[in-house]
């Protein structure tokens, strides 16, 4: 499989010392998109660490995801300006509409949900970024609208 070759190639470039654990996890996520159960197990094996410890570290950091990112990764900004203007309500609304928690991907693999800190367009806060497009001045009400439009586009395209 191509994916396991990629992982082997990455592991091959590192010594199995603890300080290399985070760089390895970061690089695998960058190449593969996420850290699956199997990946966490092979990383644990490589570093001679208990799998429970690798799982502990992967779940501790927000930057790691354990599921594929989804065709439309939804990034809700929780930077200071967006947060003050209700960014967390927008995140809640997406979570409710998509029925997934932050860091998860919908069953059909269409949507992923993440929070990030600042895209640099605080003047139109609160903002959401989906497929490199910025959605300005979001409200919980426009969340549904955004999702309907994306789903429609998918049907047509």
């Amino acid at each position: 499989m191509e994916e396991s070759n990629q992982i082997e190639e990455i592991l091959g470039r590192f010594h199995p010392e603890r300080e290399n654990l985070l760089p390895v996890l970061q690089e695998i996520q960058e190449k593969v998109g996420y850290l699956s159960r199997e990946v966490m197990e092979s990383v644990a094996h490589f570093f001679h660490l208990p799998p429970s410890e690798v799982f502990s570290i992967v779940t501790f950091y927000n930057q790691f995801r354990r599921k594929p990112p989804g065709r439309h990764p939804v990034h809700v900004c929780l930077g200071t300006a967006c947060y003050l203007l209700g960014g967390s309500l927008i995140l809640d609304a997406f979570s409710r509409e998509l029925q997934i928690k932050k860091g998860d991907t919908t069953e059909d693999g269409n949507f992923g949900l993440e929070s990030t800190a600042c895209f640099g367009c605080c003047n139109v806060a609160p903002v959401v970024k989906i497929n490199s497009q910025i959605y300005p001045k979001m409200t919980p009400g426009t969340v549904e609208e955004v999702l309907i439009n994306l789903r429609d586009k998918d049907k047509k395209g």
Partner: protein
Amino acid sequence: MPSLIIDGKEIKADPGEKILWVALRSGIYIPHLCATEGAELPFGGCRLCLVEVEIGGRREMIPACAEPVREQMRVYTQTEKIAKMRRTAFELIMSDHHIDCKNCAKRKTCELIRISSSLKWSLRPKKLRSLVRDLPIDDSHPLFSFDPKKCVKCAKCIRVCQRLENSFLDFAYRGFEMVLTTFDHRPLSSLRCESCLECVKVCPTGALFPKESGGTADG
């Protein structure tokens, strides 16, 4: 042999020993939950063993389980400030604890009950809201179960399992979301656990408890 002064009493200690164990040995009670005697790296997570230590003329708040003794060190275990801090730490622990002593298998050996009765604190938090998370009990294992709603996250079970070179348990997530769990939340029965039950023995609360039919049930 260094000697230190705890609450005005001069006490002899072994070099490198931590304040907590010296105090307990000489009959000075300091509440503690997560400390293990002889631990190379004290966890220092429960904050119940906070004491005040005189350092360069100033008093500093330090967990007694993590601080090694020094010659002529002055330690205070009973100040008003400490009582306040410990009480808050205890309330924080109890605020997400499912208090159900009547049905708890560990009620006879529960460290929380011991602490609350020796310091005359109520088990139920007074200043904080109770925020018990809705987490499922894992009772897949034939000999013991795990109830995350009673876990105080002292890491004692993690350490003991690690020492026995199994390391099935660890924390996952962080902050309020933190839970004790296995790799990928696998059920306890699916691990190659040899059922030594050491984790159940070190657990200070009813989080890890023996099943009534087997093991060392005493509840």
